């Protein structure tokens, strides 16, 4: 549609003729900037593996995007940076020891099946990175749940858990509870460890501190609003607090829920994905609350197959986003009350 105007003709379009100056590229760039602290943290905690996975995912996503657009005979969109964002987010959701080819396969799935088949950015119905993670979790269950030992288990004194089993914090708890053991003892130091990120987990999700820094940047740049992360984290907090108050021995304290299992990453960076979340403020709140409830359901029902559940919760809410949008339209100006 853009006109290359070398001639002396005036440009004519429908109004308005001025623009605030924002662009999709700028939004994506802001997201990347916001992800930078978390990337730094992942390099610090996981070293070369973080770099290997992130580079693999980004490169594969870019390549897949380029190839898809080429094959469909459409204008190339790799310059809008959305493929890079997908690649980084997917990499952040992978365990450090994952083989490179699996990361590449997941990235390919994210871009081709979850995004470009629908026509590219804006048309996809599920967050590509999350859908790809769910796909990998089911296809490569073993490799997707192998974690390196960061000493967190020892620090909470979960002695009942087999010392060779290396799991994420919530995984530890779930295994312990399934085995009928007592709730591990969460010391202040253990919580602090969760906050800074020295724990087992996917490479980008561990450091709550770095992620919150990024989220603050996004809020400041007005790329996201507080509604989705606020409602999501708030719901998880309230739900976990109630459980903890009712049965302190059998449930994880709320602060552990908030700081682990990729909740911050999911709430601030994945649930806020514009394409797959509602457009009105009311819809965003419902979306966030829904994500929170489903996350907690998956986490706390003992027989559940997954200890964490952020990705599935967001995916499920992605699925009903069109329905939320339909039900949460604003009251039009002049509607009789």
């Amino acid at each position, binding site marked *: 549609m853009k006109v290359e105007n070398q001639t002396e003709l005036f440009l004519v379009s429908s109004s308005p003729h001025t623009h605030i100056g924002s662009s999709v590229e700028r939004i994506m760039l802001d997201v990347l900037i916001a992800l930078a602290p978390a990337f730094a943290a992942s390099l610090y905690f996981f070293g070369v593996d973080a770099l290997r996975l992130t580079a693999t995912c980004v490169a594969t996503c870019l390549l897949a995007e380029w190839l898809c657009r080429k*094959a*469909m005979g459409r204008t190339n969109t790799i310059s809008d940076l959305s493929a890079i964002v997908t690649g980084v987010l997917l990499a952040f959701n992978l365990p450090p020891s994952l083989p490179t080819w699996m990361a590449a396969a997941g990235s390919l799935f994210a871009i081709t*099946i*979850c995004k470009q*088949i*629908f*026509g*590219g950015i804006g*048309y996809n*119905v*599920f967050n590509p990175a999350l*859908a790809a993670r*769910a*796909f990998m979790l*089911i296809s490569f269950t073993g490799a997707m749940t192998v974690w390196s030992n960061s000493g967190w288990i020892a620090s909470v004194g979960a002695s009942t858990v087999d010392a060779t089993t290396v799991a994420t914090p919530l995984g530890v708890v779930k295994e312990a509870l399934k085995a009928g053991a007592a709730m591990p003892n969460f010391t202040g130091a253990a919580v602090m460890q969760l906050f800074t990120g020295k724990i087992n987990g996917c490479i980008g999700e561990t450091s709550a501190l770095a992620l919150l820094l990024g989220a603050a940047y996004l809020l400041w740049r007005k790329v996201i609003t507080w509604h989705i992360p606020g409602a999501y984290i708030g719901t998880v907090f309230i739900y976990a607090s109630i459980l903890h108050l009712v049965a302190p021995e059998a449930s994880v304290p709320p602060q552990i829920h908030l700081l682990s299992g990729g909740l911050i990453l999911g709430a601030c960076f994945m649930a806020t994905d514009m394409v797959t979340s509602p457009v009105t403020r009311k819809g965003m709140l419902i979306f966030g609350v829904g994500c929170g409830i*489903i996350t907690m*359901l*998956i986490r706390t*029902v003992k*027989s*559940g*197959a*997954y200890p964490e*559940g952020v*990705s*599935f*919760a967001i*995916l*499920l809410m*992605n*699925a*009903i*986003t*069109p*329905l939320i949008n*339909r039900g949460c339209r604003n009251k039009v100006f002049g509607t009789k009350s």
Partner: protein
Amino acid sequence: MEYLLLVISAVFVNNFVLSRFLGICPVLGVSKKISTATGMCGAVIFVMTVASAVTWGLQKYLLEPFGLDKFLQTLSFILVIASLVQLIDIVMKRFAPPLHAALGIFLPLITTNCAVLGVAVINMKEGFGFFKSTLFGFAAALGFSLALIIFTGLREKIDRAAPPRCFKGVAIALVTAGLLSLAFMGFNGLVK
């Protein structure tokens, strides 16, 4: 509690459409408009609940006493369900013509909706009693409706999407259904 878990299981965990992959055809067929989809949901909930009850009676009082359940189950169930749907079709045409018009060809198609036969067969396999069978039929239909309505919402969005030409229409709808069923895997194991 047991009944509640049964319902939750049938609606979310072992969703008929997204987990057992039954009844895909009406989901693809009537997911273009939310109004038609809700009508279809109503019809399916009604048919599946009634069919569960009727087939339970058929099994309990006819097939089992006469030792026919081993080989006549499928045949007789289909026969009963088919006539039941026809009956509903006639009744609906008489008393709810707009709904009948909205459902169009898809009402007779419930006859061949494998979810209906599926729920009857699962009921017998699990050895549910009358109440449990009926409840399971109802819950399974709820699960079907949930999937159908979610899918309709998505469908309205993907119908406006711009897939490559070869993926337009049902193809992209099936891809979406696949991804949706991937998302539903999150409920795995919540209820045994």
